[in-house]
């Protein structure tokens, strides 16, 4: 009896550790996904037409741009920064891309690839400028990217002569309308690709590790012999690059380049990242979370619409959800730290 006691104790220790691990997984990693599933089930049961292929197709299409933007935004927010410029950078990129594609002197085989490079290059350049200015003069990214929001928007108007550019090459338009296997729109697949790359970089590379570390304690990273500056500029460049990629998605979906595209997109992207559990203070979060956050926003929006809740009322619900998500997050952290220390 006395001999078996320690073993029993060890067993119960292991059992409770397993239970803790399960709880931690459910609350920390699966919490947002669970919320998404519940919301989908709720609408499937209650909202008319929600559980139809067409509806999900529509959601997939609508979700693509925000998902791409949110994945780049995640990098920036993980370093405790913010990028307010992605919406208007997207607008500038659509203009650049559309201008290249509608250039009559270029054959489609050249103009389309050139436009893709132009979109991503313009976006990355804007992002790099954001990061460099922040680091060079030690400015808050809020201010710098607010500046870029206006600059990029102005640049989009100037280059487009303040007009919408239509008439994109037919193969490009066709690709945008393609639906793989009857349920997966091409632009949704692009978004999934971007998410997967972002997830891989954050989770499996030295670069990703340093992004998290910088967001956790930048000074400790610096004193460990790294140059946080380099990585922070890279994070903004990635955000710009995804804004450029989102511009391609925009062109594929709406077939126009527009200087007034993307108004307010930055706020949707930030909302998705935050709902996905990434901390505005940096160092904590995931890109899969951001994907789920974007899904929650879109599913809610679509579901409410199907309920017949008007466009005027919808923002009230969505705004509440954003704040609620962050409130829940603080409770979640408190709960997690209580099971870590027990």
């Amino acid at each position, binding site marked *: 009896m006395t001999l078996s006691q320690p073993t029993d104790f060890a067993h119960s220790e292991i059992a409770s550790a397993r239970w803790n691990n399960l709880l931690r997984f459910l609350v920390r990693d699966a919490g947002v996904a669970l919320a998404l599933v519940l919301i989908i089930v709720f609408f499937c049961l209650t909202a008319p037409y929600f559980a139809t292929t067409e509806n999900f197709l529509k959601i997939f299409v609508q979700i693509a741009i925000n998902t791409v933007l949110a994945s780049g935004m995640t990098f920036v927010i993980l370093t405790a920064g913010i990028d307010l410029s992605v919406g208007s950078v997207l607008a500038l990129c659509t203009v650049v891309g559309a201008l290249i594609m509608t250039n009559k002197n270029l054959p489609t085989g050249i103009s389309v690839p050139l436009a893709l490079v132009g979109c991503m290059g313009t976006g990355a350049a804007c992002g790099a400028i954001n990061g460099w200015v922040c680091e060079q003069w030690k400015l808050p990214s809020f201010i710098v990217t607010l500046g870029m929001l206006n600059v990029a928007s102005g640049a989009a108007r100037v280059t487009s002569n303040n007009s919408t550019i239509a008439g994109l090459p037919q193969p490009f338009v066709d690709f945008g309308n393609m639906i793989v296997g009857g349920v997966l729109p091409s632009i949704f697949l692009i978004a999934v690709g971007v998410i997967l790359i972002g997830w891989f970089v954050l989770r499996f590379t*030295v670069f990703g*590790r340093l992004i998290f*570390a910088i967001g956790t*304690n930048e*000074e*400790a*990273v610096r004193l460990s012999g790294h140059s946080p500056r380099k990585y922070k500029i890279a994070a903004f460049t990635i955000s710009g690059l995804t804004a450029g990629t989102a511009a391609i998605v925009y062109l594929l979906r709406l077939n126009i380049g527009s200087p007034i595209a993307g108004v307010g997109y930055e706020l949707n992207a930030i909302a998705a990242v935050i709902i996905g559990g990434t901390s505005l203070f940096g160092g904590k979060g995931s890109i899969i979370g951001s994907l789920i956050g974007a899904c929650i926003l879109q599913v809610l929006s679509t579901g409410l619409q199907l309920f017949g809740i008007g466009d005027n009322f919808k923002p009230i619900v969505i705004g509440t959800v954003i704040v609620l998500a962050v409130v829940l997050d603080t409770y979640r952290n408190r709960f997690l730290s209580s099971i870590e220390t027990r």
Partner: protein
Amino acid sequence: MDNAILELKAVSKRFPGVMALRGVSLEIQRGKAHVLLGENGAGKSTLINLLAGIYLADEGEIVFDDKPYHPRTPLDAYRVGIRVVHQELSMLSQLTVAENLLFENLPQRHGLVNYGEMNRRAAELLKEVGLDVAPNIPVGRLGVAQMQLVEIAKALCYDSKLLILDEPTATLTSKEVERLFEILKKLKSKGVTILYISHRLHEVYDIGDNVTVLRDGQVVATRPLAGLAIGEIVRMMVGRNIEELRLFREDVKVGDELLRVEGLKRNAHSPEVSFTAGRGEIVGVAGLVGSGRTETMRAVFGADPKIAGDIFVEGTAVEISSPRDAVQHGLSLLTEDRKGQGLLLTLPCAENITITDLAKVSRMGLLQRDVERRSASALVEELHIKTPSVYQLVGNFSGGNQQKVVIAKWLFRGSKIVICDEPTRGIDVGAKREIYDLLWQLAATGRGIIFVSSELPELIAICHRIIVFAKGKIVGVVPRAAFNQHRILSLAYEEYDLEPAD
């Protein structure tokens, strides 16, 4: 003892991994100046923070002015008449002197601030502490001594019963100290009780009536100051003779020079600093807080800028303009503030250890998690870091274990020169012993250790040499054969005490 204004009965306070106060009982007499002494980490600041309503005692009872006193917020402390002038002054530097003085109770008229009345009352208070500044200038433009007087004036306007001063003279010149003491005496004559914390043993005789010495969170003794010899106070503060722990290892021999710093200047006003460290050597760095020890080490490491100076590693001149350069040349820095600058608290132990050399746990930019886990586990085992797994978040570790993680991360890097700034601050006696052993292990493997500490006994116990800093420069280098606490202390204090009254 019916005349006690403040009485502590068996008060205890615990922090993760360390017992900051252990059954402290203490009485402070009404209208007297009571001095609180003790080494760093003895529990003085914790005690003050309990009284100020910043921490809550875990156990014990406090009676203030014949009523039970258990403050939960600083406001509770103000209400009963306890006012604390903290070591780090917390002024609203953008606001004016008058606004700071009367901040908790701004004179109002119809809901608006009555500026005339405010400035008039502020001027009165300033006159009382003998501070000749206009009430309407921003506090940020005052010097440290003046700000201190503003804090004291602030204490006056609330009719304080107990004024607590935490090392008020640390940054003052001797003339300013004299002035401060005059004011404190005047307050005392008005019946205000004073609790005074200082490191400067000589000056406490000028102001104090009684003294309490704290050590390792416990009260050693409370005595009247009159007739108490300074040697006796030192003995009470130091207590157990750390030298008897036999921490010094004769078998570790000092080899050839590993680091040489020549003519290092941090800024245009700072003096030049030069020193060396050898292979297998533990070089102590002593000096008061603010003597330039930490700042110099940070400049050597490239963490803060320097304007001049050469650094040689193994006899070769190296260019160090950032921590990155320093790390690449084999230097490491264990910062004074390990939570704020040393650790990634919300990340796992393994990630904290490998951050100094991610190339070792990656291939072509991709992390190799199994390699990382193995390397981290090996170090966790070697350093006896107590954790169920290398994936535990270091934020949940005790102070001693956290410090070991910081050492582990530099071991992982394989640094040749280890600069540690207060590595034993805020950790238990047992954990301290382990840290000393680790430092010796590092020295025995041919590394050079620079050991900055405010605890002189520990420096005397383990160092080969002690460099003494004061006022930003090196005022002496004492070899082990000549170690003597009084000599080093007087070197460290000399510069301040002998300063001419300008």
